[in-house]
């Protein structure tokens, strides 16, 4: 008998020295050398585990908060029943009646309640709040709360929805004349589903009562001043009584733009009632089930072209599903509508955008903010037109892409920083698009010449198991806020020279991984002529920093960074005028003599940028970023699985302030786009997300991620002092269409809906039953049977938990068994 076992696991001696891992050698060719830019400001804390995220903060005596949520998509709330056998004096339970101020989450429209008062409009909607001194008691209590409800008919299909959140229309030229001129009209309908931001740190808030009767919030967030405003209204607080402090934040991607306001209010209500700190830390399940997602969309295109490849008419219809409440939907729709035509000059355009309400959890901000949806659709359309015309998709874009002087559908004349063609050529060249597509095209032709036995083709394989393909997409992305948004915000950033000679930047812009804390000191130091290490960042605390506007829309480097530069330039001039010497030589002395200096810089409108909100015409954005992605895929022809092998992304961001971090943004955005294209999908039944845990909502792992090559292109925008146009969202706009084009190149079939899962690829290739349309809830058999009356509803399932009828593992979650 032979016996082998694994070599014994040797425990390191407790006193053993840590094995040496040396830093790289100079001239380390294979990996390249590290480049000389400021290192991430808060990097050492993050790398040593000392950075404090919300759940790491300890407040002695804090209670644990919990949200009681609806389990139906649409219902009348008749009452909340508390089990009389439970000692309710040991916990705190709050309902809508306990809200001192207005029962609305302050954002665009006052439609979303903090807690449901009357009508439940979506699954997992907050209805009541619980707090207990420990988790065990909390868990015991939450099982004893019952919602008494009366079901109402839900609406799931946005095309059948009657409530509209917003609509926009754009028109240019004469659409009918355009189609009359067209020799070929191509139509297409493209659908995209929900996408979860999936920051790795779940939403988290801790509310601490203040001596002045107010409350201090410590939490994971993008926009401290959104929360500040919402708290004041809900709890009837003064500016000073509501203090919001950002803890280290483990990713946002839009997902921590607006939803944190709700959580902060919930925690604050409980803390106010208790007079104790309350921790409201979501677990992944709650975060997935309840918080916002990217808006699903249905985009219809009708495009007129001539045989020789001129674009003469674009008729585009966009429908977005806002979910149950408005949140930021009008603004998302606006950006989606403005970008829907793609970066192409077309004389005759009509674009209509509409966002509607369904009985699903509200959708909200997510990197790209409406543009990834509509730009996926237009790029699909352009790639399909190229195929129909027999023109290379690269060549067709060369002919159509915007040039300086062209006019957009909103009537904006593109005067500068127009780099669509440049990013197109740079990406195509780096990826050898034409050479590779010649190879993949001929391989596809060869496979087509050897068709399988048609009688069994669906169930059998061909000799090639895999096929490679290459695909391309191009996008533009409006820099900063849409339309007059930036002017209305009137953001402020400040620079402070403190009496002891220290200098700090004061902004409400948050660090969530993208590099705010590193580039602001870098920008200030460059202006001041001092070392960036000598510029500090004030904490993101609303009692200290001004409102610099939300940390969204790729506006931080461009807009707030511009304010930091302007403030720095003013401070330098003031100090130098006073001392007669260079700032670097004289600022410490100046500070001591004058007791410091503070410069507040308010946003001033960019020159010659005018947008009319009423007519929806004018300069929709001060400038545009431009991106091109070329994706190479390998498709498993047996299973329809797609492996995205590489993506080359060329991105014109105006100015790369910190190229390492800018590349990091492109790489991260690219992978989110690849996930959107291939595996990320939320399935809904009865308005409930089935993918409500990390075992079922999948994002790409390192093995799924392509090799990503980033090409940073710099065409500065003259309106911003540094020329930067923003980088956060742009790279998200292009990967999905490039990947689907590559799947087409490999297989010969178009998948119109995202994600292009293996199920959809095989449906297109072999006619198997396609999965349900993305983003639209199906209705279970259970719910189509008559609903039980409120009385005999008995013991409804706990909390959020679905009732799967499918015995596979892991199941979507279900509650404790009786």
């Amino acid at each position, binding site marked *: 008998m032979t016996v082998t076992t694994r070599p014994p696991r040797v425990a390191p001696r407790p006193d053993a020295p*840590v*094995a040496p891992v040396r830093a790289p050698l100079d001239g380390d060719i294979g990996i390249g050398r590290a480049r000389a830019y400021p290192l991430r400001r808060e990097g050492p804390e993050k790398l040593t585990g000392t950075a404090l995220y919300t759940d790491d903060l300890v407040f002695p005596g804090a209670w644990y908060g919990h949200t009681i949520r609806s389990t139906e998509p649409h219902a009348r709330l008749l009452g909340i029943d508390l089990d009389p056998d439970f000692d309710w004096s040991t916990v705190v339970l709050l309902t809508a009646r306990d809200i001192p101020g207005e029962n609305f989450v302050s954002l665009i429209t006052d439609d979303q309640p903090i807690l449901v008062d009357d009508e439940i409009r979506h699954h997992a909607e907050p209805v009541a709040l619980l707090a207990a001194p420990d988790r065990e008691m909390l868990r015991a209590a939450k099982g004893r709360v019952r919602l008494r409800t009366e079901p109402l008919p839900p609406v799931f299909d946005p095309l059948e929805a009657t409530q509209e959140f917003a609509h926009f229309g754009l028109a240019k030229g004469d659409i009918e004349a355009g189609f009359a001129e067209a020799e070929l009209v191509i139509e297409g309908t493209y659908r995209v589903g929900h996408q979860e931001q999936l920051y790795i740190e779940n939403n988290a808030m801790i509310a601490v009562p203040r001596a002045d009767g107010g409350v201090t919030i410590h939490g994971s967030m993008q926009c401290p001043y959104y929360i500040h405003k919402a708290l004041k209204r809900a709890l009837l607080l003064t500016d000073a009584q509501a203090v919001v402090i950002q803890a280290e934040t483990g990713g946002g991607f839009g997902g921590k733009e607006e939803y944190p306001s709700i959580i902060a209010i919930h925690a604050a209500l409980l803390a106010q009632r208790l007079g104790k700190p309350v921790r409201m830390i979501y677990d992944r399940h709650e975060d997935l089930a309840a918080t916002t997602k990217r808006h699903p969309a249905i985009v219809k295109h009708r495009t007129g072209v001539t045989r020789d490849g001129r674009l003469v008419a674009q008729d585009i219809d966009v429908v977005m599903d806002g979910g149950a409440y408005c949140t930021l939907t009008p603004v998302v729709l606006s950006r989606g509508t403005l970008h829907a035509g793609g970066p192409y000059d077309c004389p005759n355009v009509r674009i209509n955008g509409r966002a509607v309400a369904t009985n699903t959890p509200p959708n909200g901000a997510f990197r790209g903010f409406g543009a990834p949806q509509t730009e996926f659709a237009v790029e699909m359309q352009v790639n399909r037109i190229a195929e129909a015309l027999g023109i290379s998709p690269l060549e067709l874009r060369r002919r159509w892409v915007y040039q300086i002087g062209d006019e957009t559908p909103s009537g904006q004349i593109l005067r500068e920083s127009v780099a669509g063609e440049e990013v197109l050529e740079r990406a195509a060249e780096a990826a050898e698009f034409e050479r590779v597509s010649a190879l993949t095209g001929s391989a596809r032709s060869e496979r087509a010449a050897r068709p399988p036995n048609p009688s069994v083709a669906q169930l059998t394989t061909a000799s090639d198991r895999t096929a490679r393909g290459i695909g391309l997409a191009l996008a533009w992305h409006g820099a900063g806020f849409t339309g007059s948004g930036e002017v209305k915000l009137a953001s402020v950033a400040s620079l402070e020279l403190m009496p002891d000679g220290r200098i700090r930047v004061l902004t409400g812009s948050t660090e969530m991984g993208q590099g705010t804390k590193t580039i602001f000191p870098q920008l200030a130091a460059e202006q001041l002529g001092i070392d960036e290490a000598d510029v500090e960042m004030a904490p993101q605390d609303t009692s200290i920093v001004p409102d610099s506007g939300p940390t969204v829309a790729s506006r931080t480097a461009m807009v707030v960074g511009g304010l930091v530069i302007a403030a720095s330039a003013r401070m330098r001039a003031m100090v130098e005028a006073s001392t007669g010497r260079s700032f670097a030589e004289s600022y410490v002395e100046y500070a001591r003599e004058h007791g410091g200096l503070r410069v507040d810089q308010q946003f001033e409108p960019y020159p010659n940028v005018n947008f009319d909100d009423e007519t929806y015409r004018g300069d929709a954005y001060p400038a545009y970023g431009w991106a091109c992605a070329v994706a190479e895929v390998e498709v498993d022809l047996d299973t329809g699985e797609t492996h995205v092998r590489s993506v080359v992304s060329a991105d014109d961001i105006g100015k790369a302030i910190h190229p*390492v971090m800018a590349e990091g943004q492109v790489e991260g955005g690219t992978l989110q786009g690849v996930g959107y294209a291939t595996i990320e999908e939320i399935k809904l039944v009865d308005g409930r997300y089935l993918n409500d845990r990390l075992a079922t909502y999948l994002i790409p792992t390192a093995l799924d991620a392509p090799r990503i090559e980033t090409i940073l292109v710099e065409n500065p925008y003259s309106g911003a002092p540094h020329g930067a146009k923003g980088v956060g969202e742009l790279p998200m706009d292009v990967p999905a269409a490039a990947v689907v084009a590559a799947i087409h190149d490999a297989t010969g079939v178009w998948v119109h809906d995202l994600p292009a899962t293996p199920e959809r690829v095989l449906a297109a290739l072999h006619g198997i039953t396609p999965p349900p349309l993305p983003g639209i809830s199906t209705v279970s058999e259970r719910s189509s049977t008559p609903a039980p009356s409120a009385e005999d509803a008995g013991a409804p399932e706990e909390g959020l938990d679905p009732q799967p009828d499918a015995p596979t593992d892991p199941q979507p979650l279900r509650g404790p068994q009786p």
Partner: protein
Amino acid sequence: MTYRFAVNGEEVSLEVPGMRRLLDALREDLGLTGTKEGCGEGECGACSVLVDGEVVDSCLVPVSQVEGTSVMTVEGLAPAGGMDGLQQAFLERGGAQCGICTPGMLMAARAYIDSGGAPVDEDIREAIAGNLCRCTGYTKIIEAIAVAARGSADAR
């Protein structure tokens, strides 16, 4: 019940239920909050630590099973205030963005390098496939691990 094990080289004895998650014991009983919770079900790897040199999800390990073992967390990679070559490589190459996956990612990378892992792209990807990152696209993480792996190999 009292459980004894080593954490970052120091012997600890904890009076906790044996089914307490190692993650909770580290974060709440020992105050080592560098180890993060991302999902509580072994999908994201944010809570990765080393137990006797092997990378595990500390949310899936009961304290009873680490009795007598040596546990290493991100706080133990380098003496307080310092960073080892792996951490330094992450800092220089941009391998950490929001930082929430970073402690777990470092532990998986550490296990890979300590077991003789080479600066080979595909192998590194497999080694960190249990650690989800949403910021970086993994590109700069892989680069940083390759740098550190090469440095480690050169040191041997």
